[in-house]
Structure formats: C-alpha cells, structure tokens
C-alpha cells in the first residue's frame, strides 16, 4: 500500500500544468486586488484632501472679500494672509505641494497636483481669478481701481463700485473653485468606480479561480481517496490499523475473511480470532511497529487456521494514520504447498515412508547423536525376493499394493522412534537407534518373519520373502554412507546365502562383494544414464553371400570402465535381476533401429534382427507383451525380429517351462522368429526342442572351431547341423573366423554363418555402410561355384 501510494499520482502532467496555471492566476489576481485596494484607499484618502482644499478656496475667496472690507472699515483683519493661502492653495492644487493651514481649521497638508487636462484648466482659471481677486483687493485697499484690461482670467467686470467688483471676482473665484472641486470629485468618483470595477473583476476572477482550484483539488482528492479506497477494499490483502486502544481499522477484506462486521473487529475484537500462541507476538508488533515481517494464524468462520504473512509498517508518527499498519496476506495455501513439497521431497509417494534422502538425513542425525552419547545403532537393509515376478505377472498395481503392505508390516514391527524408509524399488531400510547387536538382529529376524506371512494382493495369496543385511554401529563417530554400504554388502551376502535370511556385516564381506556391489550400482546407473548401446554382427547366407540378418549385441559404454564386454556384466545383471530391464532395452532399441533401416530401405528381403533373450526375461511371464510393445512402438513388422534363447533357458522342467513355451508360441504366431542359442551346450534332447516353435538353431562356436581339431568333433558338429535340418529349421554357424572354418561349415550343409571372417560386430552406422553395398563387402568371401 505504501509503495503504491508513492507511485500513485492523482494529477496527469497536463493536470499539473493546469493546476499550476490556476494557482498562479489566483495568486496574481489576489495580489493585484490587494494592491489595488491599498492604492485605491490611499488615493481616495488623498483625493478627499484635494477636494477639501478645492472647496475651501470658495470659502476663502468670500472671507478675503470680508477681510478686505473689514480692514477698509478700520477693523482688524489680515486679508494678505488669506490671499497668500488662496494663492498657495491654488498652486498646490494645480501642481502639488504643501497647503497652508487656515487658523482654527485643519492642519497643513501636502497634496499632489492634478493631471487631468480639463481639471488643470479649471485650476489654472482658479489661479487666475485668485490673482485678479487679490490684486483687486490690494488695489482697493490702496484706493486704486484696476482696469478691465489688466485682469488675467479674461473676465470683464464693468461695474464701477469696487466693493461689488470685489464681490463679483470673489463670486467667480468661488464658483470656479466649486466647479474645480466638483470636477476633481467627479474624476475621483470615476476613478473609484473604475477601481471598484477592477476589484470586482479581480475578485470575481479570483473567486472563479479559487473555485476551479478547489474543484481540481477536490477532484484530485476524491480520485486519490477512491484510488486508495478501492485498493484497500478490493485488495485481498487484509489491512489493519492498530493504535494504543487495539484495532482501529479493519479493511473489508478482513470482514470478508472472518465474516464479521468491522465494528466487531475493532478494539480487542480482531485479537479474538488470532491463534492464542500468536497473540503475544501480534500485540507486540502492533504496539512497537516491529518486527516488519510477521507470521500469524487466524481462525476462519469454518474453524480452520489460516496462515497470514503480515508486513508491519509503523505509521505512528504519521498524523493521518497515527498507528501501526498491518498488511497481511493469506499464505495458507503457500505454506501448505511448501509443507507438501517438503513431504514429497522426503517421502515415498507410494508407501508414505521416508525416502532415501530423508533416511540419509535421519541416519546422519542419529550418528551425530551416537557420537555424543556413545549409544549403538543399526541399519537394516531389506530387499524383497520375488517382487519382480509379482510385478511382471500380476501387474504394477499388484506390485504397488505389495510394497504398501510390506511398508505397513515393517512400520508395525519397529518402535515409533525407529525409521523405516523405502530406498527405491523393493529395497527398504530400517534405522534402529540405541539398539545393540542382539536387539538389532532379533528385530531383523522379526521383520523377516512378519514379512513371510502370506500377503493377499488382487485375490492372489503371495508369499514374499526378503534378504536382509544388517550393519551395526557400536557408537561414536561414523559415516552414514559407509554404514549403508556395509548393510548393502551384508544384504548381498544374505542373497547369496539363500532367500529369506539376514546377514550381519563382517569386514571380510567387503572384499568379497564390494566390487560386485559397485558394478551392480553402476549397471543401475548406466541404465538410467543411457550408457548402453547395441552393436550388430551380420549374418550371411552362405548360398548367396548376402546379409540376411544381424545379431544385436549389448555393449556398455561405462564412464568409469570404458567399453565393457557383456561377459563382464551380464552374469551380474542376470543374478541381480537387472537383466530384465537390460533385455527390454535391447528389444526396444533393436526394434527401433531395424524400423529405421527399413524406413530407409536399407534392408534386403528377408532380414531378421536377432536379440538375445535371458531365461529370467521368460520367467517373468511378460516377454510376449514386452516384445509386442516394442514392435508396436517401433512400428516394425514381427517377421523382422528374432529372439535367441539359450538352450539352458528352455530345459527346466515344470510350470516355468510351460510358461516359456506359451509365450514363445504366442510370439511365433505373431511372426517373431525364434532361435536356440549356443546349441549343443545344453544337452537338450530332440524331444524337448520339438515342443518349441523354432526357426533357427545356432551352432555354438566351440563346435565350429572343433571341426578343424578332430574328425570326432567334426562328426558331432555335422550331427548338430543334421539335427537342425531334421527339425526343419535353419542352421547357422557362429564364430566363423577363417576360410577353412567357412569351407567346413559349408561342406556340412550349414545355411548361414556369422563371425569375424565376415564382420566384427558393427555400430549401427557402420552397418548402414555395409547394407548400402552388401555385395562389395562380402563378394570375395564367397567361393566360386558354391552351391546355392
């Protein structure tokens, strides 16, 4: 609000100029009016003196005649003095100057001369007549008579009697004086009237300007008031003003928020709605104007506590406010969101348990406490067995339900002070504080027991077990990271030992499993980080010397280990179950790449991209759906995809074998090709193989290489090829490295071949070059006159 007021300007720049003009005009007209008033007042006072003097001449003229006559008759009189006064007065009236006083009359005064030509003419005439009168008087006193011709005022007095003559001259002087006085008065009147008019004009002008000014001010004030009122009332901000006597003003938004009329909120009214714990802080802020930021809660009409964030502004020194102003905003939603985000950041959404980050935090805190207290603590790491199968066979919802139930069971067993967390996937961790070896181990055992009780998920009774690693911390300093890793090592050991058990961490375990654990972790990360890629090794039709397919081979471009051969990581992937994810990646990538080649019209007909499938992938029971999804997503027809399955994956007896057969048949019906990999190594019988839909048999490289070693071995190899042909499927020789091997396999009737002799596994782009010109790449390797 205060910020807003600084930026708010009630006047536009034009408005400001107008206002300035009005104010200036007002000031000028007022000043002029006052000046004119002062001038007119002094002037009229002055003119009054002039008129008085002019009128006095009339009396003086008559008095002069009487004094002359008195003197003539021997009485005491001083006409000469009167004559002097007459003359000086006449001169002063004309040109200004001191006017002598008459005895017993007024005081001597000084007047300014007249400027109007007509008035001056009259005054000059007066002066002439005064001259004539006084000279006639003086002559009379001397006993003389003045002739007509010597008169200065152009009068002709033809009367002989000197007294009458004097009287006539006095009458003329008197008359002219009177007229002059009248003229002066009339002129003064006119001037006064003009001045009054000017003053009226100035007054009216000033008044109009004042009105305009007042109107402008009122408009501006009204605008400003309206502006602030609408800001305050329309704002969702709660505006409150507090004085010594409590709340003095509450904006409409406060009334709305609390559903209370303003009078109810004044005084101590508002405080009733404030959370009791916050009242003291609020009262303090309202009294002192500090702190400038304040968080407090009010209870809304529904009884819910709303979080308010208030800016406190101390305006006690501002005489218009004289209080502390609170601008409060409802931040409940924000606070709730912040809490929710914090919760989300530190909790697992599925189970509601703390996540790895929070677990690490708690572990670090517990270790810090342990360092102070010396109390032991333990970290239990639990990995569910068979979770993957549940997820794959019953769906992710079932898997989620299972995890939630496991979380509930774990939380039910531990003490409230212990922390159960889900670290990810099917991995859980338990932090036991102030728990020694035996207590930790017994709790671990109880957890596993509790876990083994059957869990019903989606109508299925599931028996889930877990492998647990326990790492103990005797007390004192320690690192959470190490403790977790120790528990991981112990858990790995438990897994190795067999399902459903726990292992206590022993230092020698680290050496045994440490490297593997690191590799497993890296494999997980590698999948997330797209560190895996496929190479493709061409498969050549021996009859036509053309490419009829490729085998997709997984490569791991590890940032720490470099390009890692499959042998280094596939066994671990198989053991840890990561192979399922890796296998899915290979399927999807191979399908997508083949679809691209196909779209680019690089592929000969027929062409099959072969992908190795692990027994674990088949065991999930989801292989056919995964493959189908990969094909659909890539937009690749099924006949372009082949699956290579190891012989060992198929020879298990029992329901898993049936499941495998069912999935493979479903895929085969779609058009997906099926091949037996490493044929000859798994001791599978012909009968066993006959149950499966097969398109190709891959003769293991050991047999291919054995052909050269002895006739006996060559006979075995020949049998394998014959067996394939007996099953009605194509035989392909793996690992052809020499012309001799090629010739032998050709002689044995092998249909296809792959190996370094033709090509090493190639990157996708390298293969593209080969596909663009297949005959150039392989023509030389096809012997002349070979059978087709």
């Amino acid at each position, binding site marked *: 609000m205060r910020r807003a007021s600084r930026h708010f300007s009630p006047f536009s720049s034009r408005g400001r100029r107008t206002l300035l003009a009005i104010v200036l005009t007002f000031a000028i007209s007022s000043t002029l009016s006052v000046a004119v008033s002062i001038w007119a007042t002094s002037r009229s006072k002055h003119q009054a003196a002039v008129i008085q003097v002019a009128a006095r001449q009339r009396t003086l003229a008559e008095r002069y005649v009487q004094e002359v006559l008195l003197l003539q008759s021997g009485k005491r009189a001083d006409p000469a003095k009167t004559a002097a006064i007459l003359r000086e007065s006449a001169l002063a009236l004309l040109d200004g100057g001191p006017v002598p006083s008459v005895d017993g009359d007024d005081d001597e005064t000084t007047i300014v001369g007249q400027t109007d030509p*007509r008035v001056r003419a*009259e005054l000059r005439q007066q002066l002439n007549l005064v001259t004539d009168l006084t000279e006639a008087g003086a002559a009379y006193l001397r006993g003389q008579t003045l002739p007509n011709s010597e008169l200065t*005022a*152009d009068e*002709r007095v033809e009367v002989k009697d000197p007294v009458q003559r004097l*009287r006539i001259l006095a009458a*003329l002087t008197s*008359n002219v004086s009177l*007229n002059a006085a009248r003229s002066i008065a009339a002129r003064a009147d006119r001037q006064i009237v003009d001045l009054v008019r000017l003053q009226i004009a100035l007054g009216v002008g000033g008044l109009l300007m004042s009105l305009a000014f007042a109107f402008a001010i009122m408009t501006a004030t009204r605008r400003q008031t309206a502006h602030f009122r609408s800001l305050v009332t329309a704002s969702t901000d709660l505006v409150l003003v507090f004085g010594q006597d409590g709340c003095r003003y509450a904006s409409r938004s406060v009334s709305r928020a609390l559903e209370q009329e303003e009078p109810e909120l004044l005084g101590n009214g508002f405080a009733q709605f404030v959370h009791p714990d916050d009242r003291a802080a609020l009262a303090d802020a309202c009294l002192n104007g500090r702190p400038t930021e304040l968080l407090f809660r009010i209870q809304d009409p529904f009884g819910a506590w709303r979080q308010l964030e208030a800016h406190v502004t101390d305006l006690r020194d501002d005489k218009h406010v004289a209080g502390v102003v609170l601008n409060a905003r409802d931040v409940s939603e924000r606070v709730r969101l912040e809490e929710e985000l914090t919760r989300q950041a530190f909790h697992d959404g599925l189970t509601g348990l703390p996540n790895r980050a929070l677990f690490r935090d708690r572990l670090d805190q517990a270790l810090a406490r342990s360092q102070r207290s010396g109390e032991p603590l333990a970290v239990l790491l639990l990995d569910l067995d068979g979770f993957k199968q549940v997820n794959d066979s019953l769906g992710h919802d079932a898997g989620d339900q299972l995890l939630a139930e496991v979380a509930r069971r774990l939380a039910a067993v531990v003490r409230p002070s212990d922390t159960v967390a889900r670290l990810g996937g099917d991995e859980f961790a338990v932090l036991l504080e102030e728990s020694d070896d035996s207590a930790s181990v017994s709790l671990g055992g109880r957890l596993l027991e509790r876990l083994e009780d059957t869990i019903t998920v989606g109508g299925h009774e599931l028996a889930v077990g877990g492998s647990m690693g326990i790492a103990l911390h005797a007390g004192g300093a320690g690192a959470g990271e190490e403790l977790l890793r120790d528990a991981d090592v112990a858990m790995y050991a438990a897994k190795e030992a067999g399902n459903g058990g726990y292992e206590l961490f022993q230092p020698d375990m680290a050496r045994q499993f440490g490297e593997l654990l690191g590799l497993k972790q890296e494999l997980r990360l590698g999948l997330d980080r797209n560190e895996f890629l496929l190479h493709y090794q061409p498969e050549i039709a021996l009859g036509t010397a053309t490419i009829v397919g490729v085998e997709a081979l997984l490569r791991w471009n590890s940032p720490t280990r470099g390009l890692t051969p499959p042998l280094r990581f596939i066994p671990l992937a198989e053991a840890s179950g990561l192979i399922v994810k890796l296998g899915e990646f290979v399927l999807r990538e191979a399908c997508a790449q083949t679809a691209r080649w196909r779209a680019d019209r690089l592929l000969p007909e027929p062409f099959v991209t072969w992908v190795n499938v692990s027994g674990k992938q088949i065991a999930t029971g989801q292989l056919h759906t995964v493959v189908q999804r990969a094909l659909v997503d890539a937009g690749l027809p099924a006949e372009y995809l082949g699956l290579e399955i190891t012989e060992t994956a198929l020879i298990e007896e029992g329901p898993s074998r049936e499941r495998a057969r069912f999935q493979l048949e479903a895929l085969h019906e779609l058009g997906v090709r099926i091949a037996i990999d490493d044929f000859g190594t798994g001791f599978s019988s012909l009968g066993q193989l006959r149950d499966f839909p097969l398109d190709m048999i891959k003769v293991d490289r050991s047999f291919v290489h054995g052909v050269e070693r002895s006739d006996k071995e060559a006979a075995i190899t020949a049998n394998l090829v014959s067996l394939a042909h007996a099953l009605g499927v194509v035989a392909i020789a793996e690992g052809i490295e020499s012309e001799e091997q090629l010739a032998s396999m050709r002689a044995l009737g092998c249909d296809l071949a792959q190996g370094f002799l033709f090509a090493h596994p190639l990157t996708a782009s390298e293969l593209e070059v080969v596909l663009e010109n297949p005959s150039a790449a392989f023509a030389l390797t096809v012997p002349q006159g070979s059978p087709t």
Partner: protein
Amino acid sequence: MRNAARCTALLFLLGVVVGCGASGAKSAHAPTVRVTVQDFRIKAPKRVPAGDVVFLVQNKGPDAHEFIVVRSDQRLPLRKDDVTADEDAFEKLTVGVLEPGAPGSVRKLRVRLERGHYELLCNMSGHYLGGMRTEIEVT
C-alpha cells in the same frame, strides 16, 4: 394573426420613419445659430431671424456655463447679492435655458424668437457681471 401583427409592425416603422423625416424637414426650416460660451464671454451673431431658431451652444471652457435666452431691451435686474441676475424677475421673458454644460460640450437649444431685442447670458455666480452676456437683435 401573424400577418396582421407583421403589418402593424411595418406600419408603425413606416410611421416612425415618416415622422422623423417630417421633424428633420421641420428643423431644416429652423436656422441654426452658432454660439460659443467660454470664460467669461458669450459669442453670438448680432442678428438672428425671427421664428424657430436652434442655438448650437458650444462650451469652450475651461469652466462649466449656462445658457439663458431672455427677451429684454433693458438691463436685467440683479438679485440681492448684487452679483447674479434675478431670473425669477424675468422668468416670463425667458424663452430658453440650458443648464450648466461641461467644457467641450455642444448642445442645442430650440426656441421661437419674435422680432425684438434679446439678451444671452450665463448666470452662474459672478459670470453675468464678469462678462458673460451678449445682446442680439431678432428681425
């Protein structure tokens, strides 16, 4: 109605114009006699024709002056002050009076003069005896 009102207005206007013309024609018959008054003289022609006469009185100042026309062939009687003429005494012989006029003013006085001797004067205090009188002969 409107037409009638318009006709009346027109007739009235016509009447005014005709009337003015008639009075103009009438004053054209009355000869103008130029008179100047000033301190302290009255200047006028010695002879004026009998009948309607218009005196055109110009005051040359510097004072205000009256203008009185009196039919008389002898000296006018004075008031007791011995300074001004006794207007009441010759009221019946007075044919026209202009009250004091400001310097610079020009005024008209319409009178009917019969054959005989007339005196023109200003009777403001002292003016008459100070020289502001003149005689004319109406023939």
